[in-house]
């Protein structure tokens, strides 16, 4: 337990230090820092395994050293301006919703501690393999089990295995706890990020909307990597929107090191940054993600077998498949809107906001990122070598959820009014300065 506490403390301190160094503070720095820190812990531990076969606490010591350096160089914290508190009823409603979702998560975790299908077949399976054979990575990433996707990046399995090593056993409580922390941090980070831009009332409303998305609870209790990726994408988008492209690149790269789709979202975000903020910020974004992207490249070249979808796809084949699939994929998107079991009323609400409020939207970085990413999702199903309808049925909800918290953030930032100006003599923190003016 002491080793696990040390690992968690190192992860938390490092994640918060990264964000404090970027000028973030308050609940967003804490929540996003926890998620970022866990991701950094998984990445650092996997680097030790891949390069050195090391399984001790060295990765945590490295994170602590990094955290100390970043903390020492953090900017001085300014005073927060007082904001009008959110309505009490809304605060109570969000608290109640959070309690309900937590209770349901706990209940399902007790019933099915091994997680959902993909957790058993991919993520936790690989974590158990890393724990059982840390010095035989050929066994861990064997190409003989194609359905187990040994080509998937190892951040989450390494994070789970890290906990197994710290505890000395393959206890199911640890991956359950990891899933809970990422889910809770995602909700808290979204609420606080919107609150910082548009006031506490809208922040709470955004958090409530995410809590009211059934897919959040489903992916959390199934222990899937999609929720972890969604949290990292949100953090990257929020940081990039506020002009902190270096740590945004780090968060996006950690997302790419979590699931293959993360690389696509990182590319979309870099394109959005290039268009909105210029080449210098885009280069900063790439520089921030470079160490993790290099680690990912090493894993892909040295250990990962070829990805099945990529291996079965050729340019000519993709171009020939795409045109007749346009109505099929469009229908797949439309079906998501009416899938109450996954999205409740949240997805139709967000779509209605964009359709009804398009002309009066406030231009942000998050919106073009979401548009590019959704376009990429559309193209994936146009060219997939699998049956498009079946592929969408089995994966589209999870793919869209990876973008969902960022989409909710983009919606609130685009359409919610900024809070009223604070009285003279107090600095306003509601809207950050545009990039390039720091």
């Amino acid at each position: 337990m002491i080793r696990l506490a040390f690992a968690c403390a190192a992860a938390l301190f490092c994640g918060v230090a990264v964000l404090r160094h970027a000028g973030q503070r308050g609940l967003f720095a804490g929540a996003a820092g926890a998620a970022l820190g866990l991701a950094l812990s998984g990445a650092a531990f996997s680097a030790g395994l891949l390069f050195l076969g090391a399984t001790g606490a060295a990765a945590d010591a490295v994170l602590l050293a990094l955290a100390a350096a970043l903390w020492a160089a953090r900017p001085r914290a300014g005073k927060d301006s007082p904001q009008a508190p959110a309505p009490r009823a809304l605060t109570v409603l969000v608290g109640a919703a959070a309690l309900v979702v937590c209770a349901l998560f706990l209940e399902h975790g007790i019933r099915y501690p091994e997680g959902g299908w993909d957790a058993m077949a991919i993520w936790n399976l690989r974590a158990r393999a890393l724990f059982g054979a840390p010095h035989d990575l050929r066994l861990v990433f064997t190409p003989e089990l194609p359905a187990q996707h040994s080509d998937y990046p190892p951040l989450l399995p390494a994070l789970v295995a890290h906990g197994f090593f710290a505890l000395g056993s393959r206890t199911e409580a640890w991956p359950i706890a990891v899933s809970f922390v990422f889910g809770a941090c995602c909700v808290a980070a979204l609420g606080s990020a919107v609150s910082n831009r548009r006031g506490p009332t809208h922040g709470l409303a955004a958090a409530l909307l995410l809590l009211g998305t059934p897919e959040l609870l489903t992916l959390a209790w199934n222990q899937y990597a999609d929720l972890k990726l969604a949290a990292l994408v949100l953090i990257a988008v929020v940081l990039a929107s506020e002009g902190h492209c270096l740590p945004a690149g780090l968060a996006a790269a950690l997302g790419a090191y979590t699931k293959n789709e993360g690389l696509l979202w990182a590319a979309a975000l870099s394109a959005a940054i290039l268009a909105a903020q210029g080449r210098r910020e885009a280069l900063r974004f790439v520089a921030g993600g470079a160490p993790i992207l290099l680690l990912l490249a090493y894993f892909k070249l040295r250990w990962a077998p070829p990805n099945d979808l990529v291996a079965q796809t050729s340019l000519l084949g993709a171009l020939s498949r795409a045109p007749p699939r346009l109505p099929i994929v469009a229908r797949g998107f439309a079906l998501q809107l009416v899938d109450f079991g996954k999205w409740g009323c949240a997805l139709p609400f967000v779509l209605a906001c964009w359709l009804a409020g398009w002309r009066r939207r406030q231009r942000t970085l998050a919106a073009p990122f979401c548009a590019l990413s959704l376009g990429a999702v559309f193209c994936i199903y146009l060219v997939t070598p699998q049956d498009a309808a079946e592929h969408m049925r089995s994966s589209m909800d999870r793919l869209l959820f990876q973008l969902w918290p960022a989409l909710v953030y983009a919606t609130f930032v685009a359409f919610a009014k900024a809070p009223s100006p604070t009285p003279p003599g107090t600095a306003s923190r509601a809207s950050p300065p545009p990039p390039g003016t720091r």
Partner: protein
Amino acid sequence: MVLAAVAAVPGVARDISVYFWKAGPLRTTRSADRFAGLTLPPGAKAGFLADADAKAGDAARRYYEALYAFAPSVLLPGAGARLVVADVADPTEIGRLCARYRLHVVARAAPGVALLERD
């Protein structure tokens, strides 16, 4: 803000309804428990056999659960390895599998689950 709250509440209500729909005794289900007591040599590769007439989905589920239970050992479908894990719905099927593939029982776990070895 009010509209966002209105849009969120049905989703939470749906989550609550799923709980009542599947309500029952709060029992923990672990697929790996079915293989308790069976062990493979470190780094070993073994075969895996399910019921011959099992539906594709059920056979796949048994296979993935066996992979999870025996990780990091690699299980490959079929009886090609020296050691074979069998997971069948009908325990009497074990004897038929042994006769068919020239295997003998090394150890048994839950009913219908056994570790077999080539003769």
